[in-house]
């Protein structure tokens, strides 16, 4: 062996927990990345959609003849072209409508040689409507005398869910304190910086290729097929880089089948891309709800029961939004040790825009309620909320009433870490004492926590992922993974894990994950699952490749495979790090021998979790996690403005994999949660959106982002890759009620309806002051 004498030893070092750059960051920072919005294909036509612009109406007359005659127009489609192409969760949607059920209903679509021509063509379409009375609140739709919006959904009910555990009446009777409140989480929307876009093209065998922002490419085929009347197998899904998703691309929305129907009709590729105004009006929202929640406890602070009666505003169609009770009930039953639970939810059709999934998926709304009621109960019992939370915190090895198994539970550690780092208990007392003293500016501190699935969620029959991994003759590794990248950083995590297992430089790993004809099955980017699921899949595939390589090394080197390791691009002796052969050289020897072999492995990883099931009693995730936020705020009692001064975060992350990515996910998740808490609000008046622009719909900006003090609690999850848990939704879930609790600490005002906008806060403070003797 050429290197055996003098080569220096290669020390063992781990990448787990290091700060790894996103592999796609350089191209994104230099403007080189071609997003779907930037793409154009030869012969491509531009599609535009005519929206109804009214919430509920019959179409009396629809004349597209002038639009069809406009030079440059290649196709005009209407509801007549989409009859029977029903799609969606309960098949209540069609790509183009014959009856108007909400403002953004798609009435007609045009394909033309330019966007300008398509836009002109839309103006030439004549439509006469007969407006119908609408339903704009779920309470109104649930009334016995409410008009029926759909013949086949009695009582305007689309979906309903229930879970019961124990005797609520008895638990209520045994409670010393009960809080009873109604929370009204509002309409907000994802605001992806890259607007919705799809490009569709049929080949002459009738197979569709769709370039899409989808974050769930495989089930997407199944969901898209009925909207086109084709087979899922005849759809190829390509996922170019996207400008954000956050759950908004976890379903099929009408513009996608519209692009495909226009492509079919014209025989040319068609691109549909929304303007920002269209994006605001036609995108899914976070699910609004009316949550009537009751929580009880004993005099000593021990929780006795929690009940929630939830009415969801389904909107006009049923997407993922009304399915959020699946997670809402897990939080209702599993946020702290709740011995008795009664949860029920129903979704009511209205003529409002409809909700999809959005980072936090029902838990943002539920934690807004549970975390405020925890704070209120602590006050009634006269315990420091931190102490009250710790007293009721679950511990490792406990089950929730729905049989979520909290194998590694670090809730108490998170509470202690956040409480200590923020000096919560002292500040809370101090600020409460200053509440009634004179002075315009009041400081407040608030604590909130939540629980979320952190090892996927088996809401489909499978929650698994396929991985293909090859190592070529130059020791370059290609990972072909089902895991989608939507900006969250699975590219960095997969690269890191491969480099960790195979001892190759990070730059020598390539990820292919954007083509459903190439990459194997995955459920999609949702449920905080990708680092956990794809991380495990990647690690298992890399370990298989490593075993094959070391077996061959044993043959070539005459040293036992168990004593060898891959490090620094070499095969080394594990014990001393002495390099024995360069990896690429070994790979070529393997390839060019008498019995040649290539390193190409496959893996299918299915997490050990149970399907959700109709009873909702199942361990539906392979792991669960908690996070605690402490928000410190200053309230201007005159204007009602809330400034967030500092946020302390303690989160059970299982194990840090890519520290930089983890921090980024928490920071970004909190920014979305802050917008939800403070400023974001879709102002709907009788189903019409009044603020479809960034001027009037306020996202958090750089000056509003407070400093964060982050504490990662590493509970070392037995099922997670290297011990890691999923992390990305909890930051969005927990922050809003922490701010609401801080507002109470600062002013005595308790608000149940987000956002905590200045005018609302100022009015509540004024009302409270007036009501005092």
């Amino acid at each position: 062996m050429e290197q055996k004498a003098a080569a220096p030893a290669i020390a063992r070092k781990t990448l787990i927990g290091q700060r790894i750059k996103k592999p796609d960051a350089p191209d994104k920072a230099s403007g080189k990345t071609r997003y779907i919005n930037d793409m154009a294909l030869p012969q491509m036509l531009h599609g535009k959609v005519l929206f109804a612009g009214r919430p509920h109406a019959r179409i009396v007359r629809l004349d597209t003849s002038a639009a069809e005659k406009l030079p440059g127009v290649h196709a005009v489609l209407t509801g007549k072209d989409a009859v029977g192409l029903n799609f969606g969760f309960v098949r209540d949607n069609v790509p183009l409508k014959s009856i108007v059920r909400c403002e953004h209903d798609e009435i007609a679509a045009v394909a033309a040689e330019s966007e300008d021509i398509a836009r002109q063509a839309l103006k030439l379409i004549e439509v006469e409507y007969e407006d119908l009375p609408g339903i704009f609140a779920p309470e109104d739709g649930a009334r016995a005398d409410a008009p029926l919006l759909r013949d086949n959904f009695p009582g305007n009910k689309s979906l309903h869910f229930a879970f019961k555990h124990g005797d609520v009446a008895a638990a209520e009777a045994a409670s010393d304190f009960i809080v009873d409140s109604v929370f009204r989480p509002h309409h907000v929307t994802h605001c992806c910086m890259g607007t919705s876009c799809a490009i569709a093209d049929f080949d002459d065998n009738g197979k569709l290729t769709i370039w899409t922002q989808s974050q769930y490419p495989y089930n997407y085929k199944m969901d898209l097929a009925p909207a086109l009347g084709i087979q899922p197998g005849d759809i190829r899904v390509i996922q170019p880089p996207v400008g954000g998703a956050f759950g908004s691309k976890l379903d099929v929305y009408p513009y996608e089948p519209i692009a495909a129907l226009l492509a079919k009709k014209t025989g040319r590729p068609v691109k549909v891309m929304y303007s920002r105004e269209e994006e605001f009006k036609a995108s899914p929202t976070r699910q609004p709800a009316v949550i009537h929640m009751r929580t009880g406890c004993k005099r000593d602070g021990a929780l006795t029961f929690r009940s929630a009666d939830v009415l969801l505003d389904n909107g006009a169609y049923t997407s993922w939004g009304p399915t959020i009770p699946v997670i809402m009930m897990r939080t209702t039953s599993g946020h702290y040790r709740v011995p008795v639970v009664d949860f029920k939810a129903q979704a009511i059709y209205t003529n409002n825009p409809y909700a999809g999934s959005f980072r936090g998926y029902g838990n943002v709304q539920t934690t807004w309620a549970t975390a405020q009621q925890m704070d209120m109960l602590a006050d009634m019992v006269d315990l420091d909320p931190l102490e009250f939370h710790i007293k009721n915190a679950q511990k490792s090895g406990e089950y929730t009433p729905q049989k979520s198994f909290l194998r590694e539970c670090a809730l108490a550690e998170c509470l202690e870490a956040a409480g200590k780092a923020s000096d919560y208990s002292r500040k809370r007392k101090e600020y409460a004492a200053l509440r009634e003293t004179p002075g315009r500016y009041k400081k407040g501190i608030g604590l909130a926590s939540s629980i979320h699935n952190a090892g996927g969620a088996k809401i489909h029959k499978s929650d698994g992922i396929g991985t293909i991994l090859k190592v070529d003759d130059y020791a370059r590794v290609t990972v072909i993974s089902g895991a989608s990248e939507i900006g969250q950083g699975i590219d960095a995590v997969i690269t890191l894990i491969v480099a960790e297992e195979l001892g190759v430089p990070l730059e020598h790993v390539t990820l292919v994950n954007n083509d459903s004809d190439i990459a194997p099955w995955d459920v999609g980017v949702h449920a905080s699952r990708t680092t956990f699921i794809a991380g495990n899949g990647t690690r298992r595939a890399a370990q298989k490749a490593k075993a094959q390589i070391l077996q061959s090394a044993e043959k070539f080197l005459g040293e036992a495979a168990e004593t060898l390791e891959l490090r620094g691009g070499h095969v080394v002796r594990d014990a001393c790090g002495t390099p024995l052969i360069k990896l690429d050289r070994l790979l070529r020897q393997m390839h060019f021998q008498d019995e040649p072999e290539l390193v190409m492995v496959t893996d299918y990883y299915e997490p050990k979790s149970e399907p959700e099931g109709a009873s909702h009693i199942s361990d539906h995730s392979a792991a669960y996690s908690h996070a605690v936020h402490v928000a410190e705020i200053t309230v201007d009692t005159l204007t009602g403005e809330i400034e967030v001064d500092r946020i302390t975060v303690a989160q059970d992350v299982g194990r840090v994999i890519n520290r930089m990515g983890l921090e980024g996910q928490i920071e970004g998740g909190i920014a979305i949660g802050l917008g939800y808490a403070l400023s974001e609000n879709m102002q709907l008046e009788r189903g019409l959106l009044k603020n479809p622009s960034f001027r009037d719909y306020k996202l958090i900006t750089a000056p509003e982002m407070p400093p964060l003090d982050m504490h990662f609690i590493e509970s070392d999850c037995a099922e997670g890759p290297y011990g890691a848990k999923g992390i990305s939704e909890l930051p969005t879930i927990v922050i809003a009620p922490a701010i609401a609790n801080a507002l109470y600490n600062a002013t005595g005002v308790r608000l149940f309806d987000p956002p905590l906008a200045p005018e609302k806060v100022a009015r509540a403070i004024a009302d409270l002051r007036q009501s005092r003797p």
Partner: protein
Amino acid sequence: MSVEIEIRFTLNGRPVSARIGPTMKTLTLLREQFGLSGTKYACGEGECGACTIRVDGKTQNSCLMFAADCDGREIVTIEGLKTPAGMNPVQKAFVEHGAVQCGFCMPGMIMQADYLLGNNPQLTRQEAQRGLEGNLCRCTGYTKVLDAVESVARQKCCGQC
């Protein structure tokens, strides 16, 4: 019948010309006639900063600027920040500090950060926050963006810390 105007200007250091309609916006001109797709459309009304470019040394929202106004100007886009030696220090800092997630807003964010740092090499974090107020990002919560900007400001102040 629409009138076409001929304009001449400097684009990323090179003299160029274009024939344009009078209502065309600079964003459209850059993306559609010059293929410079790094400059992004995200709102079309000057609220989000994703289309930020440099015009005669100052940053502007290219979605609001008529293309006709490019005539005689010096325009720099995100593609023009890179030199033959590689990315400029601001671009590098954004990559190193993890400021890029989906990255869609980043060209505009980097153009604005580069402009701020060019004007004030010792930019503080607070000044950077104010200066980037017009650039929306939905992914990052701005923290790592500000870390990146601060790191460049530190390099420029003494190169030691």
